[in-house]
């Protein structure tokens, strides 16, 4: 089976040669298969954001190889990276990152407009995803008129509207209360099941993590442990995660 994400031996060192250097990632290997819902957990400063930035072409690894949807992204030039992001990747950020001078509808339509899709094709796509995420009522609102949970669902819709190969999230529930967090995770799980969208999330929160199929634990820049859900219930999986966090943190 083809892999959506294939990471081989990546290493990331911050700081130029001669200056003070810091190794944020060392020898990271893993893969994500189509339709998988993968979580990444780890203590603060363990390198989660660094890893996600590399996967999403916002940063480049010092060494190693990253393939996404069959393409080696470490070899891309600047413009190709931008195009790659706009075509193949969806993003959900912790602080929503919506443009507050565009309405929810316009925010969601942005990735399609960036690809220069014809206006006729944009509307059905936006309506379709908004319906799935329950946003149809608020499409004409500006971000300042939305609650945190609504904002994050708009951001999710924006990440999904162009049918990317994979969606990345850096603590998407980090700024939400537990109820909104749960609603968002439910929606993401639904989209993941029904539309077979691959999702890779970074999270601190064991509850959010319990929605994943598989969790990678990262410590001091290395992947230490992997926890699969298999046919556990979510409650059991949640308990397992808590246990691993306990042992892993030592």
């Amino acid at each position, binding site marked *: 089976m083809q892999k959506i994400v294939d990471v081989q031996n990546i290493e990331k060192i911050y700081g130029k040669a001669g200056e003070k250097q810091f190794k944020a990632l060392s020898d990271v290997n893993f893969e994500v298969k189509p339709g998988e819902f993968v979580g990444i957990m780890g203590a603060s400063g363990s390198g989660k954001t660094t890893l996600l930035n590399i996967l999403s072409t916002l940063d480049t690894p010092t060494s190693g190889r990253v393939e996404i949807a069959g393409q080696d992204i470490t070899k891309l030039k600047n413009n190709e990276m931008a195009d790659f992001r706009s075509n193949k990747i969806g*993003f959900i950020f912790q602080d929503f990152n919506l443009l507050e001078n565009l309405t929810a509808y316009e925010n969601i339509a942005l990735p399609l*407009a*960036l690809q220069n899709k014809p206006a006729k094709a944009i509307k059905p796509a936006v309506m379709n995803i908004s319906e799935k995420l329950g946003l149809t009522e608020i499409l004409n609102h500006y971000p300042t008129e939305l609650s945190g949970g609504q904002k994050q669902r708009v951001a999710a819709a924006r990440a999904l509207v162009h049918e990317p190969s994979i969606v990345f999230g850096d603590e998407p529930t980090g700024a939400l209360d537990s109820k909104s967090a749960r609603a968002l995770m439910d929606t993401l799980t639904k989209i993941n099941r029904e539309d077979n969208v691959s999702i890779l999330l970074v999270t601190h929160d064991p509850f959010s993590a319990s929605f994943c199929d598989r969790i990678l634990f990262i410590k001091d820049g290395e992947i230490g442990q992997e926890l699969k859900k298999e046919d556990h219930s979510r409650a059991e999986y949640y308990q397992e995660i808590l246990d691993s966090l306990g042992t892993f943190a030592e």
Partner: protein
Amino acid sequence: MLNKLALSGIKHRIRDYSVLFSGLMIASAIFYMFMSLATNKSFLNSNSPASATSFIFGFGIVLLAIITIVYINYANTFLLSMRQKEYGMFMMLGAKSSKISRMIFIETFAIGAISTLIGTALGILATGFVSKWIISALDMQVKHFNSFYLPALLSTFVFFVVIFMFSAIKNSMSLRRSKVLTLLNRDSQPVKIKRNGVLKAVQAVLGLVLLALGYLSMWYIGQNPGFIMIGIPIALVTIVGGTYFTINSFVTAFIVMLKHNTKYSQKGLNNFTLSQLSFRINDYTKILSMVSIMFALALGAITVGLGFNNQIDNVVNGQNYYDVQLTNPDAAQQKRLKGLNIEKKNIYNFKVDKTNVYYKTSEFKKQPLGYAQIDTKTMISKQQITADPSKNDNAKFELMNTRMPDQRGKVVKFVNTQEFNAINAPTTTTVLVKTNSFKNNLAEIKSISKAEVKRYPVLKNAGADKYSAYTMINGFFSGLEFMGFFLGIAFLAMLASCLMFKILSGANGDVKRYNMLYKIGTQQKVLRATINKEIGVLFSVPAILGIVHVLLGLQMFNKILYKPYANIEIPFAIFIVLYLGYYFVTRYLYKKIVLK
């Protein structure tokens, strides 16, 4: 301790502070520049024939003062918004609000005082530099002008100290009254577009009516110069109001229209740009209207200044037909003639006795004599030629002025060749040259005229050639022209820095937006293009309105200037080049802040 913290806060925002400082310095520099002209009574009186000049400058001072107050108030808001979060934090941590309000008072006042001091020093330098440049570029004679002028310096200081005193008081009161929470959160609340269709429609109509009234009153001034004292204030008020409403309604309407056109708006970042603009326009209406008025004033001042310059040409051409006149030229003068771009060269011989001057009729048959005329009512000059000057007073007058002063009073006789030869007197030869353009050959013409005076010292105070006429007329109009140029450049610098300042101060808020667009996969190229477009629109809205204001406003000068619209492309070109320069600098700085 707190003071130290506050100072370190300044260090971290060094870029914002440098924008603020340079903005304030430019303001005081320009204010000084203007005052150095406007308060210099002996300069005004000796360089302007019109009694209206004093009035116009008085009006200019009021206008500039208002604009400066608005500008500084705006800069002050910028300062406050920059600092309130930090001061809010100090208050949250337990600093007393009286202490905080004293700190902001001192900070505001110190910034004002330092920038005024440096600004006026810059103003003195700039005044010297600009005036030298204008004087040499336009070959002018300006009397009683000095770049260092104490009354101007004092009035600039007093003015700015008073304004900053008020700003400092205002800031400290506003901090004392605000709640800590509002201080901490203030800038996370973006303004919402107010979509009030009816209000916008009313504004659109009102805007157009006001503009029409303003243009009408300027036209009326052009027809009846006596109306100026009432007409100018009327025009000013109506045009300022009209511009404000027009920008607020039409530009917003236009953006909304483009947004509704999904074919356009849903393409690339167009929608983003339109939204940025529609948010901006609301916030920018005041400054855009102010800039378009200033643009008009500046452009108008330069256009009128150059209009006086055209006047020089026209009047000079109405004085003499020939650009150079020589009596018995020697080899050196003949050689100098070779440097000219000659269109026509006439050579006449004459003899003189006690009472008469004799010319050969045949010479005029062969080389008709040119003569110039000016209608003093319409100020239109005419140039004609005649093969028989004996019956033409204008031609005789022109011919008279080509002779030496002591021979101008004698009676002119036109005789045939035999009679001419029979006269027992030495022959004098007059060489008259018309070049392809007096202006383009000015340097050579000047040297020939000077050499001629050296050969014939009597010409020193009685020169009747075109160059002598030019020096006299040039001296007369230069003062007016100088004022026009000076005002124009001062206003331009003020307006463009206002706009630049405003745009740049919004850049910090945009960093996040552009960063997000970059993250979701927008190419740098596209981001750059978006910024160029956005800043381009913000610069062109006032420019377009300003140009319309000037084109219609020139009607005011219908009676004072000969052809106010002649050569209008020159000031426009100068202006647009300078303005474009500001556009490019702004967009460069903006990208430096926003894109990494």
